C-alpha cells in the first residue's frame, strides 16, 4: 500500500521534473520524505548583455508538510539561504509569496503547503561570464513532526540564450503572488494602533477595490507574535479593520507595523502602516464579543425600521400596491378572509426572511465569509432580478395585460379570499424577494452585524427585518377597517401604475449599471436584448397563445443563460488602477511614428522577468515617468516576451541583445533609439525622452543644442 503510494508519487515527481531537468535551467534536486527542492531560472543561459536573471527556489512539499513565511507566526522558523558560494553573483533578492494561515493544535502559523517558488532577483557581477548560483538552504518543515532540512543546490548557467518556458511560468506565477506595495495594491490609508500596554493591535486599511475574504498578517518586529485576528469589513468592503491580540510583548523589538493583506490567491499587498494615536473604531460592533442586550435591541430596531422603509422602495412598492388595490377592488370580501389573507402574506415575507437567515447561518457555519451585497457580484443573480423587474414594469406600463391575469397575476399578487391562502402567502414572499436588491444601502449595518455574529443575532435581525417588511400586511390584518379609507378605484390608479412602472424600470436600469461593472457591457446587451425580445413577444396582442408563452419563456431563459456567461474575462486586478495604455509592439510602427514627430518608448518585458516587474513598479508606473509617457506626442510600446516571439527576438538581436529587460527610446532626435540601462531610474527615462524628442518636447535642451 505504502509502496504503491510511494511509487506513484515518485512517478509523478519524475513526470513533473524530467522535462525541466533536461535543460540547464534547473538544478539537481534535493529530495527527502517531506520535500523536493531545486533552483530554477527563466533563462537557459547568460545572454551576455544582461546583468539580471530571474530565478526561483522551487519547493514541493509533500502532503501534510508545511514550511514557513518570513514571519512564521507563533512558532516555526522561516527558510534561510546562504548564497556565499555563488560565482559571478553580485546580489540576490529573495521574494516571499503571500502566505496562507494554518491553525493547527491551536497554534497560528503562516506559510506554504504544496508547491511554492520563492522568486529570486539575481544581479550579476559580469554580464558576459557564466554564473553559478550556490545555495546553502536551511529550512524547517513540519507536519506532526518537525524536521530541519539543510541542503545545497547548485545551478551553473553558461553563456547562452533561450527561455525555459516551464521554469519561466513557475517564476511568473509566484512572482504574481508576491504582495504588491501600497500603491499597486490600491491602498489609500493604512493605520495601526497599539495600546500602551502592548496588549492588542488594531489595523485599519482603506483600499480602492472591494475586498472579499481578506486575511491579515501584521509584522511588528522580531519575536512579537500575534494571535488570531478579528477581521471586519466596512464601507462597501473597502475598509478593512482587524484586531489582533499581542501574545508576546517586547517594547524594544517594536518596529513600524508592516501589514500584509491577502484576499484569495490573486490579490495581496504589503503596506507600512502609520501609527495612530487613537484607537481605531471598527466598522460595526460584533455581538459575539460583547453580547449587550441594549445594543441588540438597538440593532433590531434599526432592522425593523429598515424593513418598514423597504416597503416604499421601488422594488417592493408595486407588489404592495397591487395587493392593496386588489383588496379595494374586492371590497365585498368578508373581513375574516381579509384578515387571514394578509396574515398569510405577512407569513410569506417572514418565511422568506427566515429561510434567508437559515441559508446565511449555514454558510457562516461552513466557514464561508458571507457579506451583504455580495450577491451583487453574481451576474446570474443580477440578471434574474433585471428580467423580473422588466417583466413587471412592462406589465405596469400596460404593454401586456397579462392575457392570463386570473392565473399568473393572482398567483403572484393574489386577490385573496379564495380557497386557501397560498396566493397571499406567495405575494408576501414575492415582496420579500423583490426587496433584496433594494436592501443593500439600507440594511448594510444591521445585516453586517448579524452575519458577523452568532446564530441568534442572525435570527433576531432577520425576524425584525421581516416584521418591518410585513408591517403593512399586519396593519391591515389587525384593522381590516382601514381599507375603507383607501380611495375608490378610478383613473388615478392608472397614474399610480405608471409611476410604479417608472420606479421598477429605474431599478432595472440601476441593476444594468451594476451588471456592466460586474460582467461587462456584453452581458448587459445580452440580457437587455433577450429580455426585451421576450417582453415584445408577450406584448404582441395577436400572437397565438401556444406560440406566445413558449417564445417568451425561451427568450427570458436565453437572457439568463447568455447574459451572465457573456462575462468578459476582464481581470478585475488590472481594472483597479487604469493601466498605462500600451501600444502593442510593431517595429515598423516605431519608424512611422518617429517620422511623424513622435517619441516612442519601447519596453520589452515578460511575466517571468522579475527585474521588468521591478522597473514597472518603481519607475514606469510611477508619477513623472507615467505622466510623461501619457503625454501628447509620446507612445508607450510594449513587447510581451512571455511566450517566445520571433519578431521580438530579432528586434533584440539587432541591438546585440538576447536578454531582458530591454528599454529604448526613439524620437526625431534619436531615430536609432537610445537604449536604457537594465535597471531603470526615472531620471534616465526622463532624460532619454527629452533627448529623443523634438524641440517642442525638450524646451530646456533646445538652447544647448
Amino acid at each position, binding site marked *: 500500500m505504502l509502496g504503491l503510494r510511494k511509487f506513484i508519487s515518485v512517478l509523478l515527481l519524475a513526470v513533473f521534473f524530467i522535462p525541466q531537468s533536461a535543460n540547464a535551467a534547473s538544478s539537481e534536486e534535493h529530495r527527502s520524505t517531506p520535500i523536493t527542492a531545486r533552483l530554477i531560472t527563466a533563462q537557459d543561459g547568460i545572454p551576455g548583455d544582461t546583468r539580471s536573471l530571474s530565478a526561483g527556489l522551487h519547493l514541493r512539499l509533500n502532503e501534510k508538510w508545511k514550511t514557513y513565511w518570513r514571519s512564521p507566526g507563533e512558532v516555526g522558523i522561516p527558510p534561510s539561504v546562504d548564497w556565499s558560494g555563488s560565482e559571478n553573483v553580485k546580489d540576490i533578492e529573495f521574494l516571499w509569496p503571500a502566505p496562507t494561515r494554518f491553525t*493547527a*493544535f491551536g*497554534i497560528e502559523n503562516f506559510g506554504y503547503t504544496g508547491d511554492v517558488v520563492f522568486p529570486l532577483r539575481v544581479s550579476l557581477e559580469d554580464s558576459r561570464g557564466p554564473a553559478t548560483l550556490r545555495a546553502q538552504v536551511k529550512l524547517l518543515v*513540519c507536519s*506532526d*513532526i518537525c524536521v*530541519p532540512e539543510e541542503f545545497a543546490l547548485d545551478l551553473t548557467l553558461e553563456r547562452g540564450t533561450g527561455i525555459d518556458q516551464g521554469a519561466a511560468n513557475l517564476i511568473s506565477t509566484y512572482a504574481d503572488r508576491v504582495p504588491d506595495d501600497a500603491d499597486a495594491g490600491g491602498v489609500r490609508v493604512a493605520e495601526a494602533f497599539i495600546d500602551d500596554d502592548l496588549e492588542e493591535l488594531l489595523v485599519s486599511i482603506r483600499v480602492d477595490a472591494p475586498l472579499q475574504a481578506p486575511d491579515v498578517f501584521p509584522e511588528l518586529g522580531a519575536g512579537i507574535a500575534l494571535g488570531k485576528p478579528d477581521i471586519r469589513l466596512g464601507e462597501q468592503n473597502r475598509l478593512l479593520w482587524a484586531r489582533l491580540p499581542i501574545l508576546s510583548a517586547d517594547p524594544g523589538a517594536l518596529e513600524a507595523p508592516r501589514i500584509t493583506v491577502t484576499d484569495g490567491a490573486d490579490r495581496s499587498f504589503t503596506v507600512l502602516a502609520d501609527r495612530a494615536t487613537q484607537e481605531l473604531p471598527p466598522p460595526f460592533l460584533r455581538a459575539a464579543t460583547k453580547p449587550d442586550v441594549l445594543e441588540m435591541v438597538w440593532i433590531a430596531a434599526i432592522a425593523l425600521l429598515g424593513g418598514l422603509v423597504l416597503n416604499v422602495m421601488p422594488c417592493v412598492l408595486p407588489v404592495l400596491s397591487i395587493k392593496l388595490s386588489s383588496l379595494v377592488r374586492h371590497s365585498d370580501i368578508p373581513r375574516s378572509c381579509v384578515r387571514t389573507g394578509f396574515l398569510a402574506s405577512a407569513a410569506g415575507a417572514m418565511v422568506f426572511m427566515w429561510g434567508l437567515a437559515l441559508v446565511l447561518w449555514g454558510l457562516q457555519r461552513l466557514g464561508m465569509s458571507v457579506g451583504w451585497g455580495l450577491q451583487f457580484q453574481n451576474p446570474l443573480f443580477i440578471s434574474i432580478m433585471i428580467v423580473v423587474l422588466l417583466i413587471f414594469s412592462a406589465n405596469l406600463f400596460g404593454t401586456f395585460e397579462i392575457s392570463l391575469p386570473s392565473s399568473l397575476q393572482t398567483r403572484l399578487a393574489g386577490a385573496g379570499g379564495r380557497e386557501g391562502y397560498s396566493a397571499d402567502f406567495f405575494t408576501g414572499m414575492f415582496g420579500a424577494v423583490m426587496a433584496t436588491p433594494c436592501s443593500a444601502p439600507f440594511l448594510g449595518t444591521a445585516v453586517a452585524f448579524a452575519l458577523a455574529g452568532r446564530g441568534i443575532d442572525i435570527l433576531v435581525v432577520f425576524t425584525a427585518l421581516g416584521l418591518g417588511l410585513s408591517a403593512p400586511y399586519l396593519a391591515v390584518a389587525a384593522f381590516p377597517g382601514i381599507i375603507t379609507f383607501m380611495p375608490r378605484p378610478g383613473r388615478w390608479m392608472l397614474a399610480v401604475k405608471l409611476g410604479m412602472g417608472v420606479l421598477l424600470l429605474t431599478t432595472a436600469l440601476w441593476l444594468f449599471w451594476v451588471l456592466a461593472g460586474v460582467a461587462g457591457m456584453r452581458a448587459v446587451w445580452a440580457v437587455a436584448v433577450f429580455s426585451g425580445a421576450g417582453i415584445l413577444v408577450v406584448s404582441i396582442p395577436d400572437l397565438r397563445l401556444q406560440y406566445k408563452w413558449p417564445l417568451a419563456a425561451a427568450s427570458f431563459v436565453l437572457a439568463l443563460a447568455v447574459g451572465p456567461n457573456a462575462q468578459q474575462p476582464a481581470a478585475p486586478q488590472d481594472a483597479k488602477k487604469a493601466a498605462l495604455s500600451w501600444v502593442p509592439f510593431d517595429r515598423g510602427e516605431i519608424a512611422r511614428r518617429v517620422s511623424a514627430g513622435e517619441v516612442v518608448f519601447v519596453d520589452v518585458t515578460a511575466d517571468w522577468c522579475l527585474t521588468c516587474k521591478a522597473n514597472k513598479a518603481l519607475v514606469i508606473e510611477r508619477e513623472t515617468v507615467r505622466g510623461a509617457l501619457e503625454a501628447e506626442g509620446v507612445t508607450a510600446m510594449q513587447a510581451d516576451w512571455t511566450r517566445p516571439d520571433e519578431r521580438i527576438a530579432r528586434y533584440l538581436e539587432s541591438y546585440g541583445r538576447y536578454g531582458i529587460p530591454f528599454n529604448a527610446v526613439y524620437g526625431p532626435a534619436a531615430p536609432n533609439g537610445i537604449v536604457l540601462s537594465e535597471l531603470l531610474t526615472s531620471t534616465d527615462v526622463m532624460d532619454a525622452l527629452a533627448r529623443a524628442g523634438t524641440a517642442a518636447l525638450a524646451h530646456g535642451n533646445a538652447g544647448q543644442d
Partner: protein
Amino acid sequence: MNRRYLLFGFGAAAIGGSLPLVRWFRHRFTPLPEFEMLADPKGFRKIAGGEFSLSGNVFSGIGEDRKAAHELPLDAVRRNICGSLFGSSSGNTDVVPIASFSDFYCPFCRVQTKRLGELERELNGEVQVTWHELPLLGDASLLAARAALAADRQNAYVQFQERLLSSPFRANDAYLAALSEAIGVNHDRLISDMNSPEVTQQIRESAALAKTFGFVGTPAMVVGRTVIQGEVSDAVLRKLVDLERTENWIDAC
C-alpha cells in the same frame, strides 16, 4: 415533584457514571499498533509504518556545529542507554518511563509536552517522564532549551513550556525574570542552571541519544522500549504504557 428530582438525580448519576465506562471501553477496544524491532539499538522497537522510517538518518541540526556532532558522547550513551534516556529512575519496573524529545520551534512538540504532562499527573506514579531537549534550529532554540532544562531542575518544565506556548522565547534578562516569576521558580538559580556545564552536557547527551535512535526531527519519544516519532493518540499511548509494564520494558536495558 419528588419523583422529578429523583429522575434528575438518576439521570445525572447515569451520565456521570458512564464517563469512566466510556473510557474503559475505549481503552479496551483501542487496537495496539504493530511493532517493528529496531536493528540498532538492540531491544528497542518502533511503531510500524509511520510517517517516517527511521533509517538511521544522520542527525544534524540547523546551526549545530558540525565538528561538535563528532564529539557527541555516543559511546557513553550506548553503554548506559536506559540511564541516559530515563535518568536514574529506571530501577522500578512498575513505573513505565517515558523520554520526551522536543524543540522550541516545533509546533507539535508543545502539544506532546502538554499531553505527557497530563498523563504523568493522571497516572500518578505509573509513568515517569524525562524531558530531553533537541535544539535543532539555531541559537534561539538552544537558549530556550537551556532555559527549559533549567526550569526542569526546579520541577517546572511543563509550566515553562505552557508559558511559552504562544510566545517566542527571548533571551534577555527582563524576559527571564518575568518568566521565572510567572511560573514560580527562582530566577537566579534558573540563570545559573542555564549556563551550567551540566545543562550543556545534558543537551549533548540528548543529541547523542537522538543520533543513536536515528531521529529525523522533533518531537520524538521513547516509551519503555518503544520509539515513537510523530503523532500518537492519547488512547494508544495509555495502551502502550500498560503493555510496556506487562511486557517488562526493562529487558531492553
